């Protein structure tokens, strides 16, 4: 898997192609991101390999001490001094402002070092399509018609007070012998506000100067939502 970037969904608009067609695009503000940590596959260390990056500075007064200590090399702490005295080699720090959004990308190998700045022009150079991971708009507790596109029950023909219900859920074929419904039965419940990945979105334009990426089509979430974007893993 390749390294991606953290960004914000700016909004949607449309642009014209060379042929003159209008194309719907989503504008994403991506990076620049700081490399905060490289996870080690060594089972004694992290047990998996990944690159941790941060996006957007957070004022120091709003950052917790742990958030400050995660990035700052110069922060004083008794534990650190003790470890230094004991001869433990401390992990490298990015030495930057505390980061507002911190995410990881699982990568097998990387040439990035802690403290490096990665930006959109570098990560998505020559990339034709991307995957966007976001959080879908929360719709609250919804019935089956909205949540699972059920058809509901008839408006007439003797239907009384039950027009938007799911109807019968006791299918003998799928639940034979178990005495209870199958797992994953579609019912009413929380709809939206879940992690959604949209794969294989075409890259329309990369604007390095403004850290923008334009992808064709829509992505989950509201404007201003945090998204993760990576070169697509769709074959």
């Amino acid at each position, binding site marked *: 898997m390749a390294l991606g970037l953290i960004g914000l969904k*700016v*909004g949607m*608009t*449309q*642009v*014209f192609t060379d042929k*003159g067609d*209008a194309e719907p*695009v989503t*504008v994403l*503000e991506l990076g620049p991101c700081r490399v905060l940590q490289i996870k080690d596959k060594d089972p004694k260390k992290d047990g998996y390999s990944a690159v941790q990056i941060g996006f957007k500075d957070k004022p120091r007064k709003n950052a917790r001490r742990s958030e400050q200590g995660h990035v700052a090399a110069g922060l004083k702490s008794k534990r650190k001094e003790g470890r230094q005295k004991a001869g433990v080699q401390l992990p490298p720090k990015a030495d930057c402002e505390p980061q507002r959004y911190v995410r990881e990308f699982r990568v097998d190998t990387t040439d990035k070092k802690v403290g490096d700045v990665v930006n959109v022009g570098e990560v998505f150079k020559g990339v034709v399509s991307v995957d966007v991971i976001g959080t879908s708009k929360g719709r609250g507790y919804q019935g089956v018609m909205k949540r699972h596109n059920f058809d509901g029950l008839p408006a007439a023909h003797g239907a009384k007070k039950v027009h938007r219900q799911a109807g019968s859920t006791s299918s003998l074929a799928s639940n034979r012998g178990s005495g209870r419904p199958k797992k994953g039965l579609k019912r009413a419940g929380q709809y939206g506000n879940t992690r959604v990945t949209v794969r294989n979105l075409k890259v329309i334009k990369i*604007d390095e100067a*403004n850290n*923008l990426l*334009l992808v064709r089509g829509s992505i989950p979430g509201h*404007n201003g939502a945090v998204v993760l974007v990576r070169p697509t893993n769709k074959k």
Partner: protein
Amino acid sequence: MQNRLIALIEDAHKKNDIPDFRIGDTVDVHQKLLDGVKERTQVFSGTVISRSGSGAKETFTVRRLVQSEGVERIFLVHSPRIAKIEVKKAGMVRRAKLYYLRDRVGKATKIKDDAKRQVVIDKAIKAAAEAETKAAQEAAAKAKTEGGTSKRQAKKAAAKEAAKTAKK
């Protein structure tokens, strides 16, 4: 309010030579069409009955009667496929959307002229026509001084030659 970054993207796709045309105006829309490999322009003229959207997404609807059948087309104001929008007549209306024209026929579809704006538009049309003739003249003069033969000259020369051979 529009987002700064969205505006940045849209500005790059916006034209800045869009004439001031309003609801109720009669316009000629010159569209670029790809006819095989050759590009040609087609003109759609009619009344602007609505404008909607903003920025690079703005559209306008033009209504005209073709064989007493109403035809409406929606164009993107900033589309590169539109070569030119020409305002022919300024109309004065009290609505932002003239959908009521759909229910009317004949004299009832007439829109009051905006005489004040019409003066400006007439001037612009005249200036454009003058500029065009001037450009044509200049091109002709240039062709003459450069010694190239125009079509007409070539025709004349050919006729002369033909007459000569006929005489012989």
